[in-house]
């Protein structure tokens, strides 16, 4: 464990911490642009966070310790995940053997679980609705997530994201095999679901069909900033896993030099922008469905994951 590796690991976490609002800003801006509006500035999420951190904290009546604990747990969980996955380098760094893909998924879900608890905690009607909806969707998304992870494991005979990355870079026939194509499609739908971009609601604030927003309606000030930042980081992490492990495994730092790491950071931004454009396209082109059709995209994703596992058996 050299000093360079430790610094690289810190750089990975810092990259996720600092670049995640930028991705959020990119999506907000260009979604508006596609719909022929001006859209907010790219750095608007940073300004929002700055503003929220300087506001006073209003605590709802009857809030327990969970109300204070949840944002901190969610934020910390999102800081742990980048240690486990290839964000900038394509080789394992110190402590990256703490958990495999399944471990990363567990920690990502832990953050969401605490936000759900916080939504229930204050006893407001909207928090309850948001929590129950998000739990319903998570229950349906979980089998798919597990199947996708099983598919990845069968593809690479390993549960470590770095091994999958090396395999896909090294062997183009695996990259273009049906199993991998299915996994990419299934994970893309999961990505839309987990980043709160289901076609059944818009991700805007205060709306009848809101899901994620309803859970955090009681938060204000610095705690709201933490929650927002954590959800931006979750989005950034899921996009990074999708890019660096599945879809575009190229363009990571191989030797870990300063220049290479900077280049990898730029490359990650470029790749994420590409995925964000795809997400914007899907979100704009896909018509809104009735709320009770939320299980359809998840069923399609489950099907694709199951087909990936089967295609893998035949490969």
């Amino acid at each position, binding site marked *: 464990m050299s000093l360079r590796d430790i610094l690289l690991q810190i750089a990975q976490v810092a990259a996720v911490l600092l670049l995640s609002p930028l991705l959020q800003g990119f999506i907000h801006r260009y979604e508006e642009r596609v719909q022929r509006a001006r859209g907010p500035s790219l750095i608007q999420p940073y300004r929002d966070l700055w503003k929220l951190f300087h506001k006073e904290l209003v605590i709802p009546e009857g809030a327990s310790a969970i109300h204070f604990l949840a944002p901190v747990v969610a934020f910390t969980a999102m800081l742990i995940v980048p240690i486990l996955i290839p964000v900038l380098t394509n080789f394992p760094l110190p402590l990256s053997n703490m958990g495999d893909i399944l471990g990363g998924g567990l920690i990502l879900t832990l953050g969401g679980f605490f936000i759900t608890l916080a939504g229930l905690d204050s006893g407001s009607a909207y928090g309850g609705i948001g929590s129950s909806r998000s739990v319903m969707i998570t229950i349906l998304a979980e089998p798919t997530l597990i199947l996708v992870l099983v598919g990845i494991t069968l593809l690479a005979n390993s549960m470590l994201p770095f091994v999958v990355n090396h395999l896909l870079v090294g062997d183009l*026939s695996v990259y273009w095999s049906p199993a991998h194509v299915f996994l990419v499609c299934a994970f893309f739908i999961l990505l839309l679901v987990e980043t709160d971009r289901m076609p059944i609601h818009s991700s805007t604030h205060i709306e009848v069909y809101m899901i994620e927003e309803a859970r955090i309606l009681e938060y204000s000030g610095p705690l709201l900033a933490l929650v927002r930042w954590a959800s931006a980081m979750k989005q950034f992490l899921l996009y990074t896993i999708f890019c660096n492990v599945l879809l575009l495994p190229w363009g990571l730092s191989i030797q870990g030099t300063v220049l290479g790491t900077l280049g990898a950071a730029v490359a990650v931004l470029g790749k994420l922008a590409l995925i964000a454009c795809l997400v914007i396209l899907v979100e704009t082109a896909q018509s809104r469905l009735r709320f009770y059709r939320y*299980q*359809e995209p*998840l*069923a*399609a994703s489950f*099907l694709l994951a199951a*087909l990936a596992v*089967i295609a893998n058996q*035949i490969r």
Partner: protein
Amino acid sequence: MTLPHFPPLAASFFGLLAIASLLLAFVMLGSRWLRDYMYAFGLQSWLIALISAGIGHYEQVPELYLVALLTVLFRGLLLPYLILRILRRLHADRELHEILQPASALVLGAAGVVLALAVAYRIADALGDPGSPVIILALTVMLSMKLIGFLMLSIRHEAISQILGLMILENGIFLGSQILIPGMPLLIELVILFDLLVAVASFGVLARYLMEHAGTTSSLQLRKLVG
């Protein structure tokens, strides 16, 4: 029985095409719009024609080019055109009362594919040639498309979806036979095509009859056995 052996590139090409047609079967299973089914069915037929032509090329069976051409003409163009015409005349756009939600149907279909895979392994073992993965793939796709066809027949009420279920079933058998027995006589292929044409034509008559006498194309209304 001797099974064909393909070079690796051809095998992966056929594998991709077979899996793409399986996906299109799932598109038909998961969609509610009858027009979408038709487009998916047409596209699936084009893919199967590509498989025929490819196998004709690799196995040096020139009749298969003709089979491919006939598949494109009949299944890819003529049948979708005829059924779209029926759809236009009957003003039946979408499935209104499905027995099973499309989401549950997709999951059931996935279970069907798993079953098909298990059966395909058994059959490949019985044939004594477990080697080539494309054989197992062809068997799996064939069996699962048959299961999906049966599923569509049993969960859809709209008369037009039912004939589509029948046609997926038939497409599945055809796809499997193309890969497994490349030298299938041309005559049989011609007979099957005309069979399909007759099925669609008589079905069109039946659907119009239904529309006139029952006022709907949903088979749910067919409770009584009187005219």
